[in-house]
């Protein structure tokens, strides 16, 4: 059955995305295009539900709703992975910010300490 191949390929793809991909403008653009594509497909499916079942039959599934369920699960997993990666990026930026703050404070304290001893002597 085609659907099994497609779903397994999707899972492997999401796994590779999780492990390999680094965030880039290209990925951002692809994600945005993906959102628009899903919206467009959504409109088509609402207008002509029969097409969904036709596509489902073509890949070896009996009903369109089943195809919709599978597609939703894949979409959700993709979202989880993308969001997880984004949160890693954010926490790294957060760490750098906090570190710079700490180091600036430390340099300031050291400079003040040096000045104070100069004044004393």
């Amino acid at each position, binding site marked *: 059955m085609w659907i099994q191949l497609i779903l397994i390929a999707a899972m492997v793809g999401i796994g590779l995305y*999780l492990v390999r991909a*680094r965030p880039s403008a290209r990925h951002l653009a692809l994600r945005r295009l993906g959102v628009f594509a899903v919206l467009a497909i959504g409109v088509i499916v609402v207008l002509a539900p029969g097409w969904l079942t036709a596509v489902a039959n073509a890949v070896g599934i009996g009903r369109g709703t089943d195809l919709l369920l599978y597609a939703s699960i894949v979409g959700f997993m993709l979202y989880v992975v993308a969001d997880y*990666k984004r949160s890693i990026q954010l926490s790294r930026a957060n*760490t750098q910010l906090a*570190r710079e703050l*700490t*180091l600036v*404070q430390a340099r300031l304290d050291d400079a003040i*300490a040096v000045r104070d001893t100069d004044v004393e002597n």
Partner: protein
Amino acid sequence: MASMSTERSGSAETSLRDRETWIVIPLFNEASVIGGVVTELRQRFEHVVCVDDGSTDGSGATARAAGARVLTHPINLGQGAALQTGISYAREQAAAEYIVTFDADGQHRLEDAVAMLDEARSRELAIVFGSRFLDHRTNPGWAKKVVLKTAVRVTNLTTGLRLTDAHNGLRVIRTDAARKVNLQQDRMAHATEIVLQLGRTRLPWAEYPVEVLYTDYSRAKGQSLLNAVNILVDLIVN
């Protein structure tokens, strides 16, 4: 630079202190032990830097009272982040020749740190990793041994170095090597990441046998098997 820390009486003692080494200690909620650790280190080292990683038990104040230079993270970021902050601070000090990373919980011995520095100086090594598995003084218990040995294998696979102990917090890093360290792993996976980045410097390195003192206290805080899973995932996911 001598003016930075609180000067004490006893000039004979202070003259023995190492002034070109910065001890870096990531510090998070270790108020009961950090005072003793800093006091002992200060017998031999002028510069002890504690990076207080958002402790809520007054660890920072305790370390400061014991004579440490305390840097304070505004929020808790993790041990790797604290280590990087300490290294970043220490390597920009004009007098710094060596940086020694040291754990706050009292599991490392001062004598080991001193011996590793002697080793680095005499053999002109840029990096000396402490290893608890080069002799039989340390007995971590079998569960911990399995975790640590797995960590070593993962580290050796990813870094290409041949180490016997990966997650040992006691390391000597010359400042030229320290300048190449930029840890992204905020949590425990930094122990593998730092080996990777130091290995890439191609500078001369060695392992040195150290003893890890497993007190009931450090045992209770040790790394669990599930934590090893976290480390693996952190390393795999970009």
